């Protein structure tokens, strides 16, 4: 039926730097109501929404309410490719991101947080001017490298140092104006990785440089492989995707530089991009051993507690 290739979204999932599993309740009902509307293709019972929401928090980033308002949740919950986030045992201690949420805002001096020498949980690295002690020149190079890999990203994080921020900003401008175009072009070919889907003889290529997140990648893969297959609901939304009937039939996996096959979504995007060699959309039934409790949870995920 509908082959919906979806990476688990779910607005109720973690926000920002968390991976935390709270806050499901408010969004849950919204999700449920959406699901009801589009019901026939979706055979998941209500609880599913909860732990599905636990999964890879694609496109959430704090915008959970936003997501569920949009009708995209109608796709999200009914079929998707499982990723590492679906298996909490695999996911590392990301939930323990305690204290200051030092999410990717590099080098910014946050107000008023004094460094307490006695505290057991030291303030995050990202809060302090001029720390770690890396020369501005090297920092700029890192920024440009990262930018080239990501293909986007306001790198203002590193640039927004407190006092001599102008100096550093100035320096970034010197580098930024040239490097972003040149290096992205240079790295262009490296950004393409092969993608194969089980059951489809012809593989495709996807440009990783064109994406800055897992959800964006999932969207692209979906377009690529399932556009033709599916003719049902076509929601004109950024995160819209086709409905997939049946249980989570597909899993998105990748081969890394060392030849190991891993579940997509386990590591930060940047790390993933650096280490991925090729992608495979694998049938769930074949993805044994990719996650410790995979088989078990395969049956139980619908009733998995939050």
């Amino acid at each position, binding site marked *: 039926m509908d082959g919906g290739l979806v990476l688990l979204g779910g607005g109720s999932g973690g926000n920002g730097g968390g991976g935390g599993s709270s806050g499901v309740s408010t969004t849950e009902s919204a999700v449920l109501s959406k699901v009801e509307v589009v019901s026939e293709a979706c055979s998941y019972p209500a609880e599913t929404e909860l732990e599905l929401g636990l999964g890879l928090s694609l496109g959430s980033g704090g915008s959970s309410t936003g997501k569920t308002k949009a009708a995209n949740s109608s796709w999200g919950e009914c079929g998707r490719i499982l990723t590492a986030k679906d298996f909490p045992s695999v996911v590392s201690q990301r939930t323990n991101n305690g204290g200051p949420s030092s999410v990717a805002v590099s080098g910014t001096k946050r107000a008023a947080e004094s460094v307490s*020498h006695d505290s057991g949980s030291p303030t995050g690295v*990202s809060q302090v001017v001029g720390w770690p*002690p*890396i020369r501005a020149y090297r920092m700029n190079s890192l920024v440009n490298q990262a930018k080239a890999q990501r293909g986007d990203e306001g790198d203002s994080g590193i640039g927004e140092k407190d006092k001599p921020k102008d100096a550093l900003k100035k320096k970034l401008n010197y580098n930024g104006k040239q490097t972003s175009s040149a*290096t992205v072009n240079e790295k262009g070919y490296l950004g393409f990785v092969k993608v194969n889907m089980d059951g489809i003889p012809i593989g495709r290529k996807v440009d990783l440089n064109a994406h800055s997140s897992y959800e964006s990648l999932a969207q692209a893969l979906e377009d690529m492989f399932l556009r033709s297959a599916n003719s049902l609901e076509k929601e004109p939304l950024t995160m819209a995707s086709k409905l997939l009937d049946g249980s989570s039939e597909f899993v998105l996996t990748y081969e890394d530089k060392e030849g190991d096959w891993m579940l997509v979504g386990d590591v930060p995007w940047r*790390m993933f991009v650096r280490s991925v060699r090729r992608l495979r959309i694998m049938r769930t039934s074949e993805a044994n051993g990719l996650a410790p409790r995979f088989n078990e949870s395969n049956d139980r995920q619908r009733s998995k507690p939050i």
Partner: protein
Amino acid sequence: MESSELKRSKDSVNSCESARRSSFPDEVLERVLSLLKSHRDRSSVSLVCKDWYNAERWSRTHVFIGNCYSVSPEIVARRFPRIRSVTLKGKPRFSDFNLVPENWGADIHAWLVVFAAEYPFLEELRLKRMAISDESLEFLAVSFPNFKALSLLSCDGFSTNGLAAIATHCKNLTELDIQENGIDDIGGSWLSCFPESFTTLEVLNFANLTSDINFDALEKLVGRCKSMRVLKLNRSVSLEQLQRLLVNAPQLAELGTGLFSQELTIREYEELESALSNCKNMHTLSGLWDATGIYLPALYLACTHLTFLNLSYAALQSVELAKLLAHCPQLKRLWVLDTVEDKGLEAVGLNCPLLEELRVFPADPFDDEIVHGVTEAGFVAVSFGCPRLHYVLYFCRQMTNAAVATIVQNCPDFTHFRLCIMNPGQPDYLTNEPMDEAFGAVVRTCTKLQRLSVSGLLTDLTFEYIGRYAKNLETLSVAFAGRSDWGMQCVLGGCPKLRKLEIRDCPFGNAALLSGLEKYESMRSLWMSACNVTMNGCRLLAREMPWLNVEVMKEDGSDDSQADKVYVYRSIAGPRRDAPPSVLTL
């Protein structure tokens, strides 16, 4: 020449005592002393007696000034009449990390003006953390007809136009070394400014620049400078262009590649590999931006005699590094990014028994959500395999006291131990204790230690250890550490050879600051920022010690009585007159 000879005979007449004792002609003494290169030796020599003082000053051709404000150009010119080479350092080191206001000072121009008058035959100028404008570069280029070598490290204030002036006017240039500067990179036409007849360049390093350069001009330049031994390209130079350059310069001893990733045909790859392996003299390799496993093998044959490999701009994985290191048996210095992880460092330990220096930089310094990069395990692995290790700079996210103890047991010859646990104030992650014992082990075991940077959760005990054991320590960097004034007092009370002390974000106050009154005159400088020092404390220090310059940098919106950033240094030039309004000289 005549006047100088007159002057010399007058001096020797004055030093009658030594004239009686030794019938050493001045010329001979000068000739002997001219062989002395170390500026410290020369300082010692100059203290022996008046004769020797004079012989030394007349024979000195290179002067090293570690703090440009400790002395004035006029004083230097008066004492050393025959200087041909100058090394000058300016801003405090923490300016590298944006802790010093941009217009702080350390401008080279006043020096150049004096040099133009007193040292018209100046040949070399090496600057670190100085401010230098395009006008100054142009002035330099036209004022010294014999000028040969310019090296700029961590400087700022100039653009590629200044480089163009150098290229245009310095007919005898042998060295142009532009490193890690805050340069305004306007464009690459500066390379074309080297005249067609120009052939003397031996060192060309423009890795700092980000813009595209005129490759045609570069190719011709490299082609006609047959004595070129150091060539460090910038990112804009492709692999294919690199190959073309190397074909014409197989004599290179130090190579910095450009971007090390590009789609090459098999033939192009083989040509590159061949060109690289033809560089039989190559002992230093750097650049390698964006290098990946695909093209690294092209380097394998070129690495046989490599002693210094700088991979700090190539985010390699452990396997890639391991494969590369298998071809680098002679390696003595290695710089890497922490993307190689502990596994990569294990490969270092296995493949590089001669290693003396290791620097591991963080690829993602601000992402402390996920633990990646290197840990204590990698460092320990290196220490087991590389007993000659004596210089380390290590950025990591976790460390233990036990690991450090093991490391220094394996490598007791450390001279430079710079450990940066990136989360400020982080304890031993296994025992949750402070990292005091780690650094205690370092200072107790490594008796030759000259430079130490500490990090992690540290009490005053660390500083007790340092003060008690670090007898050869010259430079100490401290951040987010200590419990009370006692810590800093221990250091100032011990460490007889201490020259540079830089402290940030520590609970040291006036009592600590003032306990070093006597000490600061034997030191080059002291930096304290975000500590508990007040303006009154600084004023007291300034009042008591007339030979010290005490400068305070105020931050906007801070308490009037707090001295946010304090920089103290000895000087015979008196307080400086070029300080910006944000810097108060007390």
